């Protein structure tokens, strides 16, 4: 095959679906990848699974499969996804149900497991990137998942699966696996694996390379952002690729959009670690080769890491958030008085000593700690946040903010309050030979 066409159909757990359907229908893709896991997403999945053993996978899985499976079959496009999150087996079973309901007889669904290493990691495992060890954390563990690479995915490609579902499949590995399989790149062929990892890295966040998360009106304008298209990579057997998108979709693919994604969540550009390779992006060339077409080349790579990263998720208790707004003359002063009342009463009346953060949205919130404040705002929102292992602390805080409606400064309105469960994650390492990915292929 001269060129392998691979697209992204989701770049995070809540990503859009309609442009993914459009991409499969019109993209003549060999493969589409739905990347739906962050570190914390897996931990939330484990919490869901504890509450119901049939859950723990991406909550949009059924909706996505229902829309995409018929289009994938018609187009001859195979799908790879980590929507299995904390429960790939249940996700695969649900996908089979959907395929049968849709009459997609013979559809092959591969389920990859073995990323759950909770029985293998010792309590004295040191953290990967900070002092301390697992046993230092005084919170219940909800799950431990190792990042799986192409060695876990390629057997499913060899089995000619139409849909490959896993849990903690590393983001770029889901793109690299079909490239390595198609072009017969060996597991020791580090330059090509590094090049394919660049393709995966550029594609894994979906529209972040096609004009999403880029627009800054008047400075960086993007056409039809509401109809932004997902990316396509046309990959050559030397590992170079053209990043593009469907004609008629919104967004843009330019050297600027590609560069912002090139180093997104990358630290040292010459040393980007995945389960497959130590990729080197430091000499990458980025060139416009047509409208909405950008060629990337000269990525490389060296050794495959001997240790795999493991995300350990803990039950982090609860976070409460509550807000109330003030507008017009003296809005800032009235909101500031409300801040002082909430702080005082939480400590003095309720004895809640947890960290409480109080922001004035419109004056000082996102950049508060950076010391950047607005001064002229006359429409400001009190925002109070608190995290605690005890849900009751959060409930008391919400009550205190709501009480400002009658008891606080003049003219406050628009109370909202919400309490959500929290997770905490830490990273440790595990020798890769201890991680044993498994594969099961099921037929609809």
């Amino acid at each position, binding site marked *: 095959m001269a060129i392998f066409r691979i697209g992204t159909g989701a770049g995070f757990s809540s990503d859009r679906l309609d442009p993914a359907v459009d991409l499969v229908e019109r993209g003549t893709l060999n493969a589409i990848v739905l990347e739906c896991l962050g570190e914390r997403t897996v931990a939330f999945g484990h919490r869901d699974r504890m509450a119901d053993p049939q859950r723990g996978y991406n909550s949009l899985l059924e909706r996505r499969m229902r829309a995409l499976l018929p289009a994938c079959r018609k187009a001859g496009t195979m799908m790879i996804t980590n929507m299995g999150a904390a429960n790939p087996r249940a996700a695969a079973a649900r996908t089979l149900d959907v395929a049968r309901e849709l009459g997609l007889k013979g559809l092959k669904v591969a389920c990859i497991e073995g990323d759950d290493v909770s029985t293998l990691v010792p309590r004295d495992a040191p953290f990967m990137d900070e002092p301390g060890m697992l046993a230092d954390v005084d919170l219940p563990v909800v799950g431990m998942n190792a990042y799986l690479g192409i060695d876990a995915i390629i057997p499913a490609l060899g089995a000619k699966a139409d849909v490959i579902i896993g849990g903690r499949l590393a983001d770029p590995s889901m793109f690299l696996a079909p490239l390595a399989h198609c072009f017969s790149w060996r597991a020791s062929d580090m330059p090509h694996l590094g090049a394919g990892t660049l393709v995966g890295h550029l594609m894994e966040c979906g529209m972040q390379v096609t004009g999403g998360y880029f627009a800054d009106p008047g400075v960086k304008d993007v056409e039809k952002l509401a109809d932004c298209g997902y990316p396509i990579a046309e990959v050559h057997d030397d590992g170079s690729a053209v990043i593009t998108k469907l004609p008629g979709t919104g967004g843009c693919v330019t050297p*600027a959009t590609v560069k*912002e994604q090139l180093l997104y*969540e*990358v630290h040292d550009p010459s040393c980007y670690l995945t389960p497959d390779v130590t990729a080197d992006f430091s000499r990458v060339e980025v060139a416009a080769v047509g409208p909405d077409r950008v060629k990337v080349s000269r990525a490389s790579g060296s050794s495959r890491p001997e240790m795999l990263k493991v995300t350990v998720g803990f039950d982090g208790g609860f976070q409460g958030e509550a807000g109330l707004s003030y507008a017009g003359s003296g809005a800032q002063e009235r909101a500031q008085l409300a801040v002082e009342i909430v702080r005082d009463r939480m400590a003095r009346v309720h004895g809640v000593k947890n*960290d409480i953060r109080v922001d004035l949205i419109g004056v000082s919130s*996102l950049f508060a700690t950076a010391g950047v404040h607005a001064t002229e705002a006359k429409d400001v929102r009190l925002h109070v946040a608190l995290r605690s292992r005890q849900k009751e602390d959060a409930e008391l805080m919400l009550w205190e903010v709501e009480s400002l409606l009658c008891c606080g400064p003049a003219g406050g309105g628009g109370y909202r309050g919400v309490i959500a469960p929290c997770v905490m994650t830490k990273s440790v390492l595990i020798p890769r030979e201890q991680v044993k990915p498994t594969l099961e292929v099921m037929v609809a």
Partner: protein
Amino acid sequence: MNAPRCNIRRIVRDIAHARSGDKGNTSNINVWAYDPANYELLKCTLTPERIKQTFPLLIRGQVTRYELPHLCGLNFVMDDALEGGVNRSLNLDSHGKSFSYLLLGLELEE
């Protein structure tokens, strides 16, 4: 440095674009000069020392700068700069997604 001739000083956003990301409690921000002619100005303006000094309460750890001169890009890695990160921060933006605009808002050293 001489006093500016007009009241409106140019900022980084006038010559460059940027994106922020997070890994744990570490923030990274990549910044790219639109015009190669402004890359040196960008480098002079965005030094690790200036960034750390400008946001002392936010950036508690080290600031490291990686350079990609052939693409006119800089990548800043700021340790202990996310108020604990998504695991702990009570900032509405616990990922520091908005922090690219902290750097884009700095005045140019010209």
